[in-house]
């Protein structure tokens, strides 16, 4: 039986209320933290080696240690703008256990010396935002927030800030702009938010699940926490399994659990008679991996998935079964990023648009296999050339689809041309002589 930090009691009735949370030992870690030196808490976070749960996987302790010390206006921002397609873990965690997040944020704010903290929640999560509002009011009433937290000298104001529907606001600097009441455009980095973030002040931004780990780390001790999971990926992870599976949902596993156990064991695998064609390991921004045994046997942790050519991201596994054409998946994915591109950087704004247009050419039977190379090169031009990674987040899955399923793309092109009465793009007799496979040249995966 693996360790569960969040899901052992998640459906306990009344867990969202302060009284129940307090009964199971809630806010005792905040008490403990207030008796510690802030630096000692950061040491515990460093020892735990807990990595960010939002997508980038950056070590939380290191990020917190980048903040300058001393007396100044510092901020803690919780990134609850969970918009990555396929991700829905923070939603369930916030709705069912809001006080754990509040306690984690209070401890983290104390550790970095922030006197104001904000939860930036996406506007669509109205019920969850209401739950958080109510929980914060309860906690403030009971003295866990506000002036002189639990009788100490430390004061903290915590507010929920509702977004209004923009995927880009999950990017940390765009989130800060949205929180400052502007259009959510990413900023040039450096300076990183740890130095110059919200209102130009040093700001720590962390995902909901990351902050919820903080009370657990203090309770167990950083070193004990680091024993869960693998050496590079410590702790547990809430994995969101969705798409073509028999039981989609959130499942908490120790990092390093075999992928097969998650997809087939917990989520029940694909429907009867279907096979997994490909899967996104970390939301729709992660390069896809084929559903073969080689990939099913991968341990589900940051390093193994990265070695396999993808990324753990937000640990949102989306399963695509063999009845779905890969071109449709690519087009659906690309359209999402085209819609969500903020338009600030040209490679992303134009690249996402032209990728959609080229995929539509394929769908309409106007494309030739050369379009695949052009598309791969467009994706390659986006990578690393923008202020944020939204463009990369389209380029990586699309080029991975071309890499793994090039033959299906080519078949799709020919079929669509035939349907359109345009004739074959490559004469049948020449099919075997189409020249060297150039996809590796453009491949974003493995750079």
């Amino acid at each position, binding site marked *: 039986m693996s360790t569960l930090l969040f899901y052992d009691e*998640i459906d306990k009735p009344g867990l969202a209320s302060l009284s129940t949370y307090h009964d199971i030992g809630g806010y005792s870690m905040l008490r403990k933290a207030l008796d510690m030196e802030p630096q000692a808490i950061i040491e515990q976070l460093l020892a735990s080696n807990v990595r960010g749960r939002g997508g980038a996987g950056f070590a939380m302790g290191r990020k917190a240690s980048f903040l300058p010390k001393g007396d100044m*206006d510092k901020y803690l921002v919780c990134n609850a703008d*969970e*918009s*990555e*397609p*396929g*991700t*829905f873990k923070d*939603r369930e965690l916030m*709705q*069912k256990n809001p006080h754990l997040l509040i306690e984690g944020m209070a401890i983290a704010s104390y550790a970095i010396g922030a006197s104001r903290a904000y939860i930036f929640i*996406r*506007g*669509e999560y109205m*019920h969850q935002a209401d739950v958080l509002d109510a929980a914060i009011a309860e906690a403030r009433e009971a003295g866990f927030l506000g002036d002189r937290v639990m009788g100490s000298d430390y004061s903290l*104001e915590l*507010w929920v*800030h*509702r*977004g*209004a*529907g*923009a*995927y880009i606001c999950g990017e940390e600097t765009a989130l800060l702009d*949205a929180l*400052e*009441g502007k*259009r*959510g455009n990413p900023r040039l980095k450096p300076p990183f938010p740890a130095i110059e973030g919200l209102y130009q002040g040093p700001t720590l931004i962390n995902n909901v699940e990351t902050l919820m780990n903080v009370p657990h780390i203090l309770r167990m001790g950083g070193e004990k926490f680091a024993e869960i999971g693998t050496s590079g990926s410590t702790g547990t992870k809430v994995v969101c399994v*969705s*798409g*073509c599976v*028999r*039981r*989609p*949902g*959130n*499942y908490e596993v120790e990092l390093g659990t075999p992928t097969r156990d998650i997809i087939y064991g917990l989520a*029940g*695998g*694909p*429907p*009867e008679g279907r096979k997994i064609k490909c899967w996104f390991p970390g939301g*729709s921004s992660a390069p896809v991996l084929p559903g073969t045994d080689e990939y099913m046997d991968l341990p589900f942790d940051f390093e193994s998935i990265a070695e396999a050519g993808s990324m753990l991201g937000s640990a949102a596994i*989306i399963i*695509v079964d063999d009845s*779905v*054409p890969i071109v*449709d998946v690519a087009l*659906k994915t690309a*359209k*999402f990023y*085209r*819609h969500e591109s*903020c*338009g600030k950087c040209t490679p992303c704004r134009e690249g996402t*648009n032209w990728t*959609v247009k080229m995929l*539509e050419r394929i769908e309409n039977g106007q494309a030739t296999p050369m379009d695949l190379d052009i598309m791969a090169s467009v994706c390659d031009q986006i990578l690393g050339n923008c202020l944020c990674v939204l463009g990369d987040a389209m380029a990586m899955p699309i080029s991975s689809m071309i890499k793994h399923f090039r033959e299906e793309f080519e078949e799709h092109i020919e079929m669509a041309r035939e349907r359109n009465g345009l004739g074959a793009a490559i004469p049948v007799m020449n099919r075997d002589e189409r020249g060297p496979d150039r996809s590796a040249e453009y491949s974003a995966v493995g750079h």
Partner: protein
Amino acid sequence: MTPSPSDPSRRLAGQVRRYSHGSRVPDWDRAADLQKAPAVIPDLATTRVSDELREAIEQYMSRYPDRRSAALPALMLAQKVHGWCSPLAIEQVAAVMRLTPGYLSSVATFYDMFETEPKGEHTVYVCTNISCALRGGDAIYEAMVEAAGDDPRMNVRTFECLGACDIAPMASVNGEYVGPLDEADCRQIVDELTSGRPVLEHKRLRDRPSAIDLPMGDGLPTAGRDISNRITASGNDVAGPKDM
């Protein structure tokens, strides 16, 4: 004082379709003076703002070191009052927040949840992103559009991933997440909305236990699974980014 027929705001109001909710708001079609420079902060003394709206916005402003931060929640409040981010709504927010209407318009046009033209009062966001599409989200959208028909009170639109792929295909009905939906549910949603009853109470996400406690389904989608992206001319996905 009623504006003369040649008044630009009067002409605009004539073009704007009227809805039941709009008519209930006093002066909803009056105040936008398009000849006024959008870069001038409206004077709170001469702009009519209801006390509730002003106090609610001011309360948000007090939560931040910089009052500008309240722009998103303030616009959302004004949208609730006016039904959409109308020029009047934006002017009222601008007067309270001491920002220019032009600035607030730029913010309102960026975010998907702000309506920049009049819309029906019942909002239905149908998720058509990848996880929902794999389980029939596109068919649900089409069924929902058909069920809504040309009822002006309904505002049905596609939406990007709403973060509820465990109940795919799903929709957010006036902010309440419901799913997994089948085509019959769409009819029921429209009926319940228009008659003012709570929507699909047995399929609400907020009451759902965590997945591990649920029985294993057969994994088959409840509706057709054609994700061939035929839906382009809807809601927010017309010709690329919303505003460039």
